[in-house]
Structure formats: structure tokens, C-alpha cells
């Protein structure tokens, strides 16, 4: 119960087309992440699915039924907003009960569902407080609670973690994934953070300028990026790119190699470079190395001993070299 199909949809604001014709199918129960740099149209796409914006052309179907002209209330979707968008004048209990009240459910059923949701999300101690009295993480949970009580066909998340601090973000990420395991309801999640996308998604949709660059599982995108944009966007630190004669040796216009696929040595190797900045994280060390092909980022072991100005040798893992043609497409 939650298969969403986008068929040749477009969106224009006045003259400007933000989303050129786009097709996408989201399967029932999938956790799909829309990821891309800010302004890539991922939030607009989510709002189109939600019904908060009209599509300019094309069709949206939810479980096979046309939903293009349905108002948001009739689509049976629930949304968690970036700002949580809790009703500040209502207690946690009333916030969670609001969608049920709008659906005119009997009061005892509302109570039962609210209690249940509060239990699941550990909100019971705060149930009679106002949102203003809660911490960021608690507010986030209330917003999720308000979404789950409706038992929607799908959940929409619009950058829900971006207002939380780093530690809390990791926790909530796990909680949302856990929730998806429990409910196995379709979830569509928008973020600009590729780490969130990699850790949570069943399927990632990479967007740039309203265009889908690639759709696939996290590892699929990591191992087989379809083009330069996806290769550069997925993975942290970023993939290193080399053009020119060195790329031509591999029969490509551009080659890409991830920092973790370069072997570092102080004695010998294929490429020579001089160490610039070093970031020692303990578990790993990231070095910026100035080579004849430009600056490259390298991941190496935590206690690799290199100082600013030292000479190091780099050897790429030949199986892990990504090749791209002149138009930026991957060569398989």
C-alpha cells in the first residue's frame, strides 16, 4: 500500500522550469532518498508528491489511482517537515491527535492510537507538554508521531534532521531506519547530506537541476556511478578526478579514484606527490597530496607518519578506477 508513480511530471515557476519531464516509480515499502545539492529540486519534487504544489504537467499515481488533482488531505500521505511544523498552541497529545480528529475518528480510538504512538516513540512523559517545552529531538519525535498515527500510504520527510546537532542526528537516523523496519511503509526522504542517503536508503535518487542523474542502491551508486556528477557527489571525502594523458592511458577522458582506493607509501609507488594538509582522525588519516595531476585526497591508516612537505608515493587500485568519457558518462 504505497506505490507511487511519477509519469512525465514537470514543474515550472512562471517562466523557469525547475523540473523537466521526469519519470520515477517508488515501490511499496521502499525507503527512497532524494539527494542532491541545494536548489536541485528535491524538495520541490517532494512537495509535488505531497500535493503542496501543483505539477505543471504529467501525472502522479498513488497505488495506481490518479492523485494529480487531489488536495494534500486526500492523498493519504504524511509529512515530517524540516522545522517539524508542530502546532505550538497544542499539547503533544493534541498535536498527534490532530490528523485523527480531522479524519473524524471516534474519541476512544484517537486516544488509543495516540497513547500507542507516544509509547513507541518514548513520548509518554511529555504527552501533556507544549512543543515549546521540548528539546529538538523530542519535537522531531512528536512530528514523526503525528505522521505515523494516520497509518499513511507513505511518509514524506523533508530534511528532517538538519536542525539537530551532530550526535542527535546519528541517533535519529537510526530511529527512523528502525521505524521503517517496523512499519515497512514507503518512505520518501529528502536530504542534501549524502551520508544520510547512504546510511538509510534502499534506493537513492540523485538529482541535479531537476534532472535525475541516477537511481540505485547505495552501493550501486558508490561502485558504479553513472556519471561524473554522481561520482563526485556520493562518497566522502570526494573522489579524485584526473584528466589529460594519465586518463588517456586508461582509455578515458577523465578517470576517477576514491581516496580510500589509493595505497600510500613512503618508499615507492605509481604517482609521486608532496604532502600538504593532513587530517589525523585517529582511525584514519586524510592527506591532501600535491601531485603532477593536481591536488588529490588520500585516505590512509591512522598512524601514517607524514609531515607537511614530505614526499609520498600513491598507487591506485586498478580495479577501482572509474573511467568517464568526454560527456562525463561512465565507460563500462
Amino acid at each position, binding site marked *: 500500500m504505497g506505490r507511487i508513480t511519477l509519469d512525465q511530471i514537470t514543474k515550472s515557476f512562471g517562466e523557469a522550469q525547475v523540473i523537466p519531464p521526469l519519470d520515477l516509480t517508488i515501490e511499496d515499502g521502499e525507503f527512497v532518498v532524494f539527494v542532491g545539492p541545494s536548489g536541485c529540486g528535491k524538495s520541490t519534487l517532494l512537495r509535488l508528491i505531497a500535493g*503542496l*504544489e*501543483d505539477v505543471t504537467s504529467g501525472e502522479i499515481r498513488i497505488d495506481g489511482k490518479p492523485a494529480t488533482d487531489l*488536495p494534500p488531505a486526500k492523498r493519504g500521505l504524511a509529512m515530517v517537515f524540516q522545522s517539524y511544523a508542530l502546532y505550538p498552541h497544542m499539547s503533544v497529545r493534541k498535536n498527534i491527535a490532530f490528523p485523527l480528529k480531522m479524519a473524524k475518528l471516534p474519541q476512544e480510538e484517537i486516544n488509543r492510537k495516540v497513547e500507542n504512538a507516544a509509547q513507541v516513540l518514548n513520548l509518554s512523559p511529555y504527552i501533556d507538554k507544549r512543543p515549546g517545552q521540548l528539546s529538538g529531538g523530542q519535537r522531531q519525535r512528536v512530528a514523526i508521531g503525528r505522521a505515523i498515527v494516520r497509518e499513511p500510504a507513505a511518509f514524506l520527510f523533508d530534511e528532517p534532521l538538519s536542525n539537530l546537532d551532530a550526535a542527535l542526528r546519528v541517533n535519529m537516523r537510526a530511529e527512523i531506519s528502525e521505524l521503517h523496519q517496523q512499519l515497512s511503509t514507503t518512505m520518501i526522504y529528502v536530504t542534501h547530506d549524502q551520508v544520510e542517503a547512504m546510511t538509510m536508503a534502499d534506493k537513492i535518487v540523485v538529482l541535479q537541476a531537476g534532472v535525475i542523474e541516477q537511481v540505485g542502491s547505495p552501493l550501486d551508486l558508490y561502485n558504479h556511478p553513472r556519471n561524473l556528477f554522481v561520482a563526485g557527489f556520493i562518497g566522502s571525502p570526494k573522489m579524485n578526478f584526473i584528466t589529460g594523458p594519465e586518463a588517456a592511458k586508461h582509455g578515458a577522458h577523465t578517470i576517477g579514484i576514491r581516496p580510500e582506493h589509493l595505497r600510500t607509501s613512503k618508499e615507492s609507488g605509481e604517482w609521486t606527490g608532496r604532502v600538504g594538509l593532513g587530517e589525523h582522525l585517529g582511525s584514519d588519516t586524510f592527506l591532501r597530496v600535491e601531485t603532477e595531476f593536481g591536488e588529490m585526497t588520500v585516505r590512509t591508516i591512522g598512524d601514517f607518519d607524514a609531515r607537511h612537505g614530505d614526499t609520498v608515493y600513491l598507487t591506485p587500485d586498478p580495479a577501482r578506477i572509474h573511467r568517464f568519457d568526454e560527456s562525463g558518462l561512465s565507460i563500462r
Partner: protein
Amino acid sequence: MATAHSRTAARAMISPAVIFLLLWMIVPLAMTLYFSFLRYNLLMPGMEEWTGFENYRYFLTDPAFSTALINTLLLVGGVLFITLVGGTLLALLLNQDFFGQGIVRVLAIAPFFVMPTVSALVFKNMFMNPVNGLFAFMAEAIGMQPIDWLAEIPLLSITLMVSWTWLPFATLILLTSLQSLDSEQMEASEMDGAGAISRFFYITVPHLARAGTVVVLIETIFLLSIFAEILVTTNGGPGNASTNLTYLVYAESLLRFDVGTGAAGGVVAIILANIVAIFLMRAIGKNLDA
């Protein structure tokens, strides 16, 4: 950022307000304009006839018009001057740290809430009366001859009355603006070696300029229409000494029942108000998106 559905709803929800205001504005305006070209006296119903610009010629060449126009400008200008200068000084004073700040503020704002007819009558009888008024008593106490305020200096007296009402308004707005003055900016300029006086002229005054503009424009709109104060104190007199445009039009239309001339006067008043309005709209419009 919305759907066609919500845009339709929005249009439906704005409509009542727009339609009411449109009617309120267009219908009487059109009628005023129409009447202004008629010979039309309420005492002679059924005798209306087209006179072209006759009413305008009559109204504009009537010596009472030029007097009323000058009086209007003096009244507006005088009140603006008093309230702006007084308001700035008062705002600076009330922005200081002192005992009973809250109470003094409440006392100072009170005049603004006094209805015009009350303030006019209280001043007329209890303060400006040449025999029993408090001003007369004070004048005698210091050995001066009491003056009959409303007979001898009617326009100035009304200016003072009206200023008493609007001084708190100017003060309140300037004070609000003063409180939003960035204290770090003040401290930075102090570090830069600016003295109290140069700080006032280089930082405080420019900061207040915007609020001051708003005060000027809004007061002007209200002051152009001063009516009750004149009606209950001097009835525009003696002679026309305290007649402003609003009162003149009122007198033509509802005292002399000359609708045609009154309407012509109304149109003139509208044109004058529009000149002010254009400036006000610019000042406020600029702030719309901010």
C-alpha cells in the same frame, strides 16, 4: 508557492474585503465628483443643474478657501514641528534608565487615548477660558494679563491642543525605534572616540529618520482631517481664523447646504491628501518585503 486550489480559495477569501472597500471608495467618490459639477442645494431640491467648473471657480476664489488652505498648512506644520521635536526629546528622555519608567511612560502616552471632543472641551473651558481657566490663573499668579486663547490666537490654541494629543504618538514611535538601535554600534562609535553630541547626530538621528518619516506621513493624514477640535471650540472662528479645509467643506455642505460647492471642496481636499499619500505609500511600501 501554492496550488491552483489554494489560489482559488485565496481569491475567494480576499474578495469580500476588496469588494467592500471598492464600493466604499468608488461609489461616494464618483458621487462627489458628479455633485461637484452640479448646482445643488439641499434647501432647493429638484433644482439641480449642470454648471461645469462653476463650483470649483466659486470654491477656489472664495477668500475663505485661501484662508482655510493656509490654516490647514499652519495647523499641520505646527503640530508636526512640535510633535517631532518634542517627541524626539521625550523619547531620548524616556529611553534613559530611571525610577518608575513604566509609570511615566503610561502617563505620557495617556493623551493619545483621550477622544478629540473631550480634549477640546477640557482645554477650551478648564484651561483656556480667560476667566476661570487654569492658564488665566497661572498668568495672573505671575502678574501677567490673561489672554482669551481661543478668541485671540485661535489657530495656535488649536495647534497646541492637537499637539498634546499627537505628542505621545510621535514619542511612542520614536521610542520604539530608539530601542531597536544597536547598542554595539553605539559602543563601537564610542570606542572610535565619538562624543555624546556627535553620536546623537551621526548615529541616533539617522537611525530615527525612518521612524520620523513615518510619524510625519501618518500624522499628516490624520491632521489634514482635523474636525472635532474645531467644531467644539471655535466653530472655525472668529471669522475664518481657525477654519481648515475639512471644516470649510463641512460648513459649505451641511451648514449652508450647498452640496455642489462642498463637493468641489471635497475633491480639492482629496487631491491634496493624495499628494501626501503618494509619499506615505512609498515609505511604507519599501518596507513591505523587508
